[in-house]
């Protein structure tokens, strides 16, 4: 548990949310700043919203191909948006669970 954006939130050892529902815009913004994102853009918010909506609807993260098609951006471009990359950046900041697999 750690205090962030005025709340106590449980994260795993890699900084992923233990509970998808404990995510909030305020916590996302605090985590984004910690991760080295200098200014959160609409593009960042679109990625996070897509990931969260997809997970909420399907009960799993999007496939790589679904992420590319859904965002209309290459994964290479998405990786570049987040200083910590796709998994530790985009996925983690969106509050999706840690996949814990060798991908």
């Amino acid at each position, binding site marked *: 548990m750690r205090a962030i954006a005025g709340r106590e939130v449980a994260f795993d050892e890699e900084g992923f949310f233990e509970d998808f529902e404990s995510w909030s815009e305020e916590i996302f913004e605090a985590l984004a700043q910690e991760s080295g994102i200098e200014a959160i853009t609409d593009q960042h918010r679109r990625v996070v919203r897509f990931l969260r909506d997809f997970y909420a609807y399907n009960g799993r993260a999007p496939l790589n191909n679904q992420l590319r098609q859904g965002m209309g951006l290459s994964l290479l471009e998405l990786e570049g948006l987040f200083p910590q990359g*796709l998994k530790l950046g985009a996925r983690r900041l969106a509050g999706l669970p840690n996949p814990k*697999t060798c991908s």
Partner: protein
Amino acid sequence: MIYLDNAATSFPKPAECLRRALERYLLLGASPGRGGYDRAVEAEAAVATVRSKLCRFFGVDENYRVCFTYNATDALNLLLQGLLQPGDHVVSSRLEHNSVLRPLHHLQSQGRIRFDLVPFSPDGFIDPAQVSAAIQPATRLVILTHASNVLGTVQPAQDIAAVCRERGVPLVLDVSQSAGSIPIRLKDWGAQGLAFTGHKALLGPTGIGGLVLGPDLDLEPTRFGGTGVDSRSPYQTREYPYRLEAGTINLLGILGLEESLDYVERSYAATYAREMALAEKLRDGLQVLPRLRLYAADRLDNHLPVLTCTLEKRRSEDIGAILDGDYGIAVRAGLHCAPFVHQQLGTLAQGAVRFSLGPFTTETEIDAAVAAMATVAGRI
């Protein structure tokens, strides 16, 4: 999809092998060795034929025992739990897959055994002298991977077997990666056993593997149940291979393995030479890319068509996702179930990207992989 994850499992499989296996299974499908009716006897005979073929394939006499398991991990568990006694010591290596490491750690955590892991050289090889130095009076077994699933380096099995023989300790090889890719002559090398899986370079289906054990390597059963023999006894039969094969065996998998064994044997050397030529092309294409580091790939002799690399300050899992999502290239990123390899390489935090080629990999696919990696490496 461009499939470059053949070290995880080969894909595609030769379809005709699976079709033939299924046709035979549909005709033969009784329980092997269970019952005296003709179909059951025929099924048992078919299984015995595959055991014989495996003996030939691995270069051992028919007095070696071939016991079927689900896969190599299953075989290694049977071996380690069935052979080792309280107080025993084991020598293994930092190149091992978790299929060896986890059973060893489990047994050690229970206070039953101790083990030591010998390191590998920067070019990915185990030094037989270090194996010899690690052997103690209590050492009951040396268990080593024949070929690293991360680096692709093929270990000097014959030289290691020689030092083990001098010290009076049996050597068992995990041939998960090498079987079907390069010849294995277990008896000539002087090793006492091996664990294999059918679904990698042997091109068979998943769910079938086995142990091949020399006549001096006796295991206690660690699974118990019906075997079709000695049914009056409430205890597990002592007779091999049934001692280690509790429950109905995977007849469809065994038939699939037989078909793929025949297929592999027909084109063995030519396939390996072709795969290594493509691996060399991939290596040459990757090694000039900025910020990319290849591991144990300066020389590709004594090597399988497996190449592993990292990109400076980039996470391997992200590179794997980009290759998949943007280019349709399937590779394995992460730690490859071999954490001590990555610890020694210094790649434990970021992981690494592994390209593993197979018999159906083409030159065009290698060109596409190099081009994709060039684009990925070019993003700073």
